[in-house]
């Protein structure tokens, strides 16, 4: 065994080979975004946006939330968020929004010189209401028009008037893109893009479900990195290419009994966005204590595929019914389902100060989930990009208290 191999073997976690392909694909995606911007064909979109429509119409997309994750992981969140604060945006606001606004103000001081300049801003409020106001702010700075794809939150079954309203949003979106980008819509093309999107989601879902195995082939950080194409490249061939490679590796690990971490002893559920600026340190620190996260509520959020005779109706269903667009009860149900399905011993809820839609309600959800499943959980508070809002010592104390319950 060579020195390099021995070094790898000593680590508490196993690196995915597919990560190198992921880097290649994401680099290509960023370069394509830059080229599209130069050609006047780039839109910024929110993570829950029905991206198959712009892709169908030949409009490239970039994801400011994903860029926020890059800012966080490069540990420059406080600096870039600070640029937005200099412009008057409160530190109490979403750090994805602040870092995005800050990078638009000073692209030359931001990672990768900022996102390429958009010609339109496409916001869907199925993930939060903040996106509209965030994109309004960026619109003020860039002159790109904002389109709001409005998906009123649902409680239980989606009523028919909700569906009709959202369907009108789809039609309005097609009209907006046609006018803004001088392009046209084809249902045939949407079906093809929908199939590609569905195939990628299916492959991704199979990798996620493989984590029901013991040991789990993927840990939290693996999934948070591997989710990039499902967020940014739905409806494209490269996404399928990556998720095929990922699934093969995951299945290989399962067949060989290899886990994502060396010594899996405690299986937990993760709720909410991760602290990007400490993602490896945080999850690997727990991995060293035998803690793996076979499931989380965030990466499981991309699940619906466009299919059926009425494709626009399918867009309505998939994008209205995303996890964050449902009430507290649905979130509790989902957590309980994951805990049962993935044989989890407990859960950690990351209360992200930036994200009110995701995080407010966790104190109550925690009690409900504990009551229904009988497993313990803990709420820790911090932020996903702005490390100034992350108190490591306080968090470790809370985690220690939780982990003691499993010893």
């Amino acid at each position, binding site marked *: 065994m060579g020195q390099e191999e021995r070094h790898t073997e000593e680590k508490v976690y196993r690196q995915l080979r597919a990560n190198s392909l992921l880097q290649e694909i994401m680099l290509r995606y960023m370069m394509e975004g830059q080229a599209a911007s130069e050609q006047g064909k780039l839109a910024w979109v929110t993570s829950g946006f029905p991206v198959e429509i712009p892709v169908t119409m030949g409009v490239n997309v970039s994801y400011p939330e994903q860029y926020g994750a890059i800012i966080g992981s490069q540990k420059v969140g406080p600096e870039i968020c600070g640029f937005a604060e200099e*412009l*008057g*945006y*409160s530190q*109490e*606001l*979403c750090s994805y*929004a602040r870092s995005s606004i800050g990078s638009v103000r000073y692209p030359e001081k931001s990672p990768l010189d900022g996102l390429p300049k958009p010609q339109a801003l496409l916001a869907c*409020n199925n993930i*939060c*209401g*903040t996106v*509209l*106001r*965030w994109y*309004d*702010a960026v*619109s*003020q700075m860039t002159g790109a028009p*904002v389109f*709001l*794809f*409005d998906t*009123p*939150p649902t*409680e239980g079954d989606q*009523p028919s*008037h*909700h569906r*009709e*309203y959202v369907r*009108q*949003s789809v039609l*309005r979106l097609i009209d907006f893109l046609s006018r803004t980008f001088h392009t046209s819509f084809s249902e045939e093309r949407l079906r093809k893009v929908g199939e590609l999107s569905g195939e990628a989601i299916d492959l991704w879902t199979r990798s996620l479900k493989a984590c029901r195995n013991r040991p789990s082939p993927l840990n939290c950080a693996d999934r948070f990195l591997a989710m990039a194409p499902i967020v940014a490249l739905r409806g494209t061939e490269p996404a399928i290419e990556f998720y095929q490679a990922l699934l093969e590796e995951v299945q290989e690990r399962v067949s060989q009994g290899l886990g994502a971490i060396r010594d899996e002893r405690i299986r937990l559920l993760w709720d909410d966005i991760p602290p990007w600026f400490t993602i490896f340190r945080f999850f690997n620190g727990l991995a060293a204590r035998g803690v793996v996260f076979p499931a989380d509520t965030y990466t499981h959020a991309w699940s619906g595929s466009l299919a059926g005779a009425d494709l626009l109706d399918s867009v309505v269903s998939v994008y209205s019914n995303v996890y964050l667009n449902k*009430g*507290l*009860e649905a979130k509790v149900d989902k957590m309980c389902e994951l805990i049962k399905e993935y044989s989890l011993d407990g859960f950690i809820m990351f*209360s992200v*100060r930036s994200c*009110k*839609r995701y*995080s*407010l*309600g*966790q*104190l*109550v959800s925690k009690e*409900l989930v504990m009551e229904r499943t009988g497993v313990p959980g803990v709420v820790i*508070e911090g932020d996903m990009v702005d490390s100034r809002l992350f108190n490591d010592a306080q968090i470790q104390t809370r985690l220690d208290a939780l982990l003691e319950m499993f010893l």
Partner: protein
Amino acid sequence: MSYEQVTVQSNSQTLKPTVTDRLTMGYVYPHAPLEIIMAHGLTPTLVRARPGIAGAFEASLQTFACSYTRNLFSQRANDQMPASSALLFPGNTCDSLLNVGDIWRVRFPDDIIFRLTYPAANQGEAAVHYLADELRSLSQSIEAAFGRPFSEEEFRDAAGLTRQFRSAAQFLYAARVVSPQVLRYSKLAALIHTFLLSPDQKSANEITNASTQVQRALARSRLLDSAKKIQEQLIKRHLTPAALPHGAKSPRIAIAGGMIDPGAIVALFNAAGIPEDALVMDLFSFGFKTVFTPPCEVGRDPFDSVARSILASPLEPTQEGLGVRLAFLKDVVTNLAVDGLIVCEQSFCDPDEFEAPSLEAEASKSGVAVMRLPIDPELSDRERLGVRLQSFLETISPRSGR
């Protein structure tokens, strides 16, 4: 559920129904469908954030929930919430209010909670149809909960009442633009609050009487026509330079923000020893925006009519349309001879805090002095806010050319 059943079910853990013969429905978002609620024989009553409430939210809400929702939650948890038979929460306006509605249902399971989900996009007729259906659904839920069907007659009465209230209040807003001394801002705020807390003939008459008195006063000083013209222009949201009396006092301050209680601003001004005459206009959700909501029309489908009324209400930062709001702000500060703008921000309120820099920039471009005022319902830091207000007023000078 009848009123008697609600009374029997009430205990210290539930909202307390009123001791009058009318059921009440508390609402927390300014654009509640008052006429629909009243058509079921319920009295809609604004649930206000109030100072002096001890925090009791910590076991249910994180500290980064907006201060308005924290205050409401604490009121309820402390059993200090005014009597109400049910509560109406909004959906799709902001994330805090959406989630708090859910949390409320878990923490206070015996409370009767309704939700009205608004459209956030400017989607024309599709938005009207959507909201009309939401209102129909709310109406059915109210009937199911209280056993009180929708009454066309009560709807007509309610529409007449809100029309009377808004017409009087709109005139008073316009009158204060022309002559802020003609009515104290605190009086206007109190008249509006009285109606929003208890929309009945008495409160409508009270503001109507005030409007009549102000009309007489302005007629004597030959300013009535100016005020009426400004009222019309504010309704149409298209202003031309206001004809102000020669030697009008300055500075003239406008104040903007979302879910800020006008009463809280009065308290701050008074505490800082600043004359209320300086405050010529507010653009608050519980002030200007509620008052300038157009009346619903009777004689057509009531749900469609109320939906159109709500969707035509002006300038809510929870909805699509920042550009329109900024254009209107520019219109206000340039045409109403405003010297300074105070932009209030409810702490941890996304709509307020996102919009404040844009409002500040727009007003600054128009040459108006701007101050941003972070505020919470408890008026914590009142002394510091007072000093900031005083300093701001001292530093601004009247605009040139007036």
